[in-house]
């Protein structure tokens, strides 16, 4: 009798077991973590192959089937998100191995792996879930693990930021739970398929609003972004990369899924979402322009970029979200990869020159060239310059907005792009200025192994842009939106 290990199950359970083993054997945590990531990536690749050949895969847990039981479902979008979390996760893990190497990092190392693997469990669970209460539990798994990672460095600033993050996370999850309550009240069931049949009544609107606000809080949409910059800026580099690159994406993904299954929200609601997104773009950029520290700048840029993704949601016109979700999905993927690369690079820069004060970057006699180069590559994708995936995402976003005649969203996107050029060029100037250094500058520091992972990520962010067409084709596998409407 052989056990049937479906890759759907494995992509959730492998990290779970990995976390357990890594927690039990702290000394071997790094090796276990890396092995787990590799195995999980293998499972996700197998799953991608399945989905590519057979279309969306559905696994009714316990054999009950929705709505009584919980179904796991893997379609193109889910698998793309799984791929994002595994690919980025694997590279961040590699980088964590090298950055948490010192004897003073022993404790960080010991706790990093179990928390990170639990985080991966939660995220993969979110991407495969089709049940809104299950989503609530999953976002709590993510929240606790993510807070644990935020405060890993143990500084006062990190703990203070972690506490704010915790409050925001709990509140967001509870708002979501309240939304779940209203859904149950209205429909008597909690699976995605049930949502599609719903009539837009008061209770349902309340549910949508509650869940949206909860998720907006989790994903730090302006003006609910207050917790994010401090949390992401004060965490240690691998943790920041995971938090900014992956964790906020889970909530974004849920928004995307709900938008797919819920009755079409009113135009006013969408406009409001767009206005919030636009506010995030502007406010996040302004704060990034004013930030004094590199990691803080990067964190604020996350706020701005998240806003842009919400603009992508908002520009849904008469056709509903049927087209705009693609732009949003592309931007989510692009931001995930590029931001992880950027945070890792920023961490490397900070390690090498001993601080991350932007004003004094150009005083450093040592220039970690490769990390700076990585940072610049990641910035190219985040700004949205061709041929990066970020560019393709913005292209899709603006194309849709233009086709629907929403010129204001085009304007917001362009303003965001220009502002991002402005704040990132502050950093480039610090990298490339040399006349404030007295000692001779040894610029070419050779190839540090620690730079390999962020550099790979940054190059992925660029190269994926060239593969956007097959990527989009993959994303559309099993996407039920057309049928649902």
């Amino acid at each position: 009798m052989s056990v049937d290990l479906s890759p759907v199950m494995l992509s959730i359970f492998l990290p779970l077991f990995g976390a357990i083993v890594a927690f039990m054997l702290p000394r071997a945590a790094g090796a276990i973590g890396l092995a787990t990531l590799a195995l999980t990536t293998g499972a996700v690749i197998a799953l991608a192959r399945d989905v590519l050949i057979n279309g969306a895969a559905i696994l009714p847990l316990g054999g009950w089937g929705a709505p009584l039981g919980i179904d796991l479902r893997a379609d193109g979008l889910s698998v793309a998100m799984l791929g994002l979390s595994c690919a980025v996760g694997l590279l961040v893990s590699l980088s964590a191995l090298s950055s948490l190497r010192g004897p003073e990092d022993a404790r960080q190392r010991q706790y990093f792996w179990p928390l990170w693997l639990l985080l991966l469990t939660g995220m993969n669970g979110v991407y495969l879930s089709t049940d809104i209460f299950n989503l609530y539990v999953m976002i709590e798994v993510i929240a606790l693990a993510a807070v644990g990672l935020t405060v890993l460095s143990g500084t006062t600033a990190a703990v203070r930021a972690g506490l704010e993050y915790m409050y925001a996370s709990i509140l967001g999850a509870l708002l979501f739970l309240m939304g779940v309550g209203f859904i149950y009240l209205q429909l008597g069931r909690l699976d995605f398929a049930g949502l599609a049949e719903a009539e837009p009544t008061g209770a349902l609107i309340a549910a949508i609003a509650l869940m949206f606000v909860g998720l907006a809080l989790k994903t730090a949409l302006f003006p609910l972004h207050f917790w994010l910059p401090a949390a992401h800026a004060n965490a240690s580099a691998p943790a920041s990369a995971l938090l900014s690159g992956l964790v906020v994406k889970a909530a974004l993904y849920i928004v995307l899924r709900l938008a797919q299954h819920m009755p079409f929200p009113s135009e006013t609601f969408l406009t409001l979402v767009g206005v919030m997104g636009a506010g995030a773009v502007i406010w996040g950029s302004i704060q990034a322009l004013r930030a004094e520290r590199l990691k803080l700048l990067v964190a604020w840029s996350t706020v701005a970029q998240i806003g842009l993704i919400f603009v992508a949601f908002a520009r849904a016109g008469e056709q509903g979200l049927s087209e705009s979700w693609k732009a949003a999905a592309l931007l989510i993927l692009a931001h995930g990869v590029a931001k992880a690369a950027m945070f890792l690079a920023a961490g490397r820069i900070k390690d090498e020159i001993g601080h991350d004060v932007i004003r004094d970057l150009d005083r450093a006699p040592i220039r970690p060239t490769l990390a700076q180069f990585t940072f610049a590559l990641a910035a190219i994708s985040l700004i949205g310059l061709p041929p990066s995936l970020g560019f393709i995402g913005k292209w899709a976003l603006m194309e849709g907005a233009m086709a629907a005649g929403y010129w204001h969203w085009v304007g917001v996107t362009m303003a965001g792009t220009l502002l991002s050029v402005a704040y990132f060029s502050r950093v480039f100037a610090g990298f490339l200025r040399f006349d404030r250094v007295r000692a001779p500058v040894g610029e070419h520091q050779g190839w540090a192994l620690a730079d390999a992972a962020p550099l790979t990520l940054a190059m992925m962010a660029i190269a994926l842009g060239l593969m956007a067409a097959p990527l989009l084709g993959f994303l559309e596998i099993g996407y039920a939106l057309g049928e649902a409407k």
Partner: protein
Amino acid sequence: MTPDMIYGAAGIAVFGIGLVGALCAQDRLRRVLALKLCSVGAGFLLLVGAWREPPGTPDPVPHALVITGIVVMVSATAVALALIRRLHSLEAEDER
């Protein structure tokens, strides 16, 4: 006037009170407590949804969900409180 209406309204009120506390309270401990109130409010809503007019038996699924919610909430509370304790110590150290 049936229990579900009464307790449903109470649950929403409790949720609202918790919300106010979570956003307006300055004291860290109080904010945790406010969040806990929110979760109780959400629990009320689910249980009210499960309630059936007496001869009928209630729907067990929301009951299970609320139990799950309670356990999840106590976990989150524990982490938040640990953070508060840690932060308090760190701040006390910094002041010295």
